């Protein structure tokens, strides 16, 4: 009883509107800011029409790993929409969501996909066409630190996958990413930081980045200064989404949170994703936007290293392949 009085008092203290409408917090990573701004407005309208309920959706953005850590430390996220599966796995490790989270929604819980492409200076003065050009001596490559940035991990694995498939085997791939990272003069901690270093500071000949981030940069910095180069093959990046069970069960928002994520899979949701330069998984919407995305042969994470836990352990954990690149005497 006392607790109920307290909670009512708390609600009154926070403000009456909190009682009148439901809120939903979507904790996401950096480049999805524009995507979810669009999506939230459309979903709120849909939800109002369907149930009569007004829903206020708040979004939080930051580095994917940092965002997952905030949720672990108690940030009340109803849903997470992160850059890579490893960060959602971390929530499962802390029992916030079941281990089977990835099977709960279609397409491995990834409602849209993206890939890693290159941004180069206008006119492509260094003639960068494919991954092989990024390891040439004297070429300066900008990417974020894979240990702290989700996008940089996809970029690293894209380079790994390219070399593994072209030159055969992990040893060749290791050699390739070592050469690549020797060409990197600055390691920012997040993908946005790298974009600024490349586009604003004018450092580097080529930036490895998310496809959607590349399109956004062109919009932001103008096609007169930079242009996109799509390599011959790249990785199929699948940013996953999940309801946070611990939070929605406590707040009583499960139905809403599940509907929110499912709406991402509808033609409307897919359309918004495509407009924000994410590759839709719905074949019809994909066909409609086919001209926007360059056709590129994509390999999956499963084809090159298995799953995220394996990738993290072998490549990005302390003592992994990435650390070895910077060990002296190697």
């Amino acid at each position, binding site marked *: 009883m006392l607790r109920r009085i307290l909670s009512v008092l708390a609600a009154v203290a926070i403000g009456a509107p909190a009682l009148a409408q439901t809120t939903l917090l979507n904790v996401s990573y950096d480049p999805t800011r524009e995507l979810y701004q669009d999506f939230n407005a459309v979903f709120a309208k849909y939800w109002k029409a369907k149930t009569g309920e007004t829903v206020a959706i708040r979004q939080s953005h930051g*580095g994917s*790993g*940092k965002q997952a*850590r905030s949720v*672990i430390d108690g940030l009340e996220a109803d849903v997470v929409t992160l850059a890579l599966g490893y960060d959602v796995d*971390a929530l499962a*490790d802390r029992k916030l969501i079941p281990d089977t989270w990835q099977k709960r929604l279609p397409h491995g819980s990834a409602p849209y996909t993206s890939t890693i492409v290159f941004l180069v200076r206008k006119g492509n003065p260094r003639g960068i066409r494919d991954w092989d050009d990024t390891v040439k001596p004297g070429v300066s490559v900008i990417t974020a*630190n894979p*240990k*702290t940035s989700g996008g940089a991990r996809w970029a690293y694995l894209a380079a790994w996958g390219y070399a593994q498939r072209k030159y055969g085997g992990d040893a060749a791939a290791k050699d390739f990413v070592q050469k690549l990272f020797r060409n*990197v*003069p*600055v*390691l*920012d*901690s997040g993908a946005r*930081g790298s974009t600024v270093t490349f586009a*604003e*500071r*004018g*450092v580097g000949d080529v930036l490895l980045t998310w496809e959607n981030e590349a399109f956004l940069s062109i919009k932001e910095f103008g096609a007169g200064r930079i242009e996109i180069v799509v390599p011959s093959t790249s990785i199929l990046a699948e940013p996953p989404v999940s309801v946070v069970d611990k939070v929605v069960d406590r707040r009583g928002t499960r139905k809403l949170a599940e509907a929110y994520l499912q709406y991402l899979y509808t033609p409307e949701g897919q359309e918004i994703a495509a407009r924000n330069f994410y590759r839709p998984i719905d074949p019809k919407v994909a066909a409609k936007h086919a001209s926007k995305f360059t056709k590129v042969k994509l390999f999956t994470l499963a084809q090159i290293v298995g799953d995220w836990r394996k990738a*993290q352990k072998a490549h*990005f*954990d*302390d003592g992994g392949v990435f*650390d070895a690149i*910077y*060990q*002296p005497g190697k």
Partner: protein
Amino acid sequence: MSVEAARGLSLRTRHSVLPGFNLALGFTLLYLSLVVLIPLSAAFFKTATLSWDAFVAAVTAPRVIASFRLSFGAALVAAAVNAFFGLMIAWVLVRYSFPGKKLIDALVDLPFALPTAVAGIALTAIYSAKGWLGQLLEPNGIKVAFTPLGVVVALVFVGLPFVVRTVQPVLEDFERELEEAASSLGATRLQTFHRVILPTILPALVTGFALAFARAVGEYGSVIFIAGNMPMISEIAPLLIMTKLEQYDYAGATAIAVVMLVASFLLLLAINLLQWWAQRRSGGKS
């Protein structure tokens, strides 16, 4: 700091006439515990979840050692640069009057107020290859942004007010008659500075140095933008802590933090002892 401690000690043993010592000390300890000791002890407890071997392995990895070297080395260099130029600025502000003096005086505090991230972004923009200063320096082979030199530049920026603001009041209180007496007794200008002025301001200068150093060791916001963050070269220890956290390695992160804490504490303690010694040598005047 040690001055106050020493004075407090002598007051207690002499049964001071000032009332309220127990109450005041109680509040001091409670406040320090809440604000400083309890949060810090959390770091130690988290680290204690590591075995000793795991702890040693975590903090002696080559990358971690390199980051310690950079963090402490750059902080020392920056504090030394600030001690020299901070003294000069304090001197100019105290000894001369000129138009715009108040303005310059206010400028000194700006690094205190500015969000460090803003400082970092501004410094990076200026010193990178296309920036105002960078385009002049880089053709001459001096790279600042994205090198350890950039780290020092950022730390100099955030540490400057500490030296100026600790030395300034001491210089203001300095009796000019002492200088006049020294010169009338035949001391050269250099001797006057070296034998009369410097011993008086040295304790304050050392305090300013220590504060600037302590601030620089823990600085994250401004450095992160200009450092380039290359492992083994320009990666500061606080960034490694962040990196460990990104990998959900809380214990590893706090292990680095504990080493930084202990090292900083020992260095500050040594500096305080040095200051105490300097004060005694110069005749115990405060």
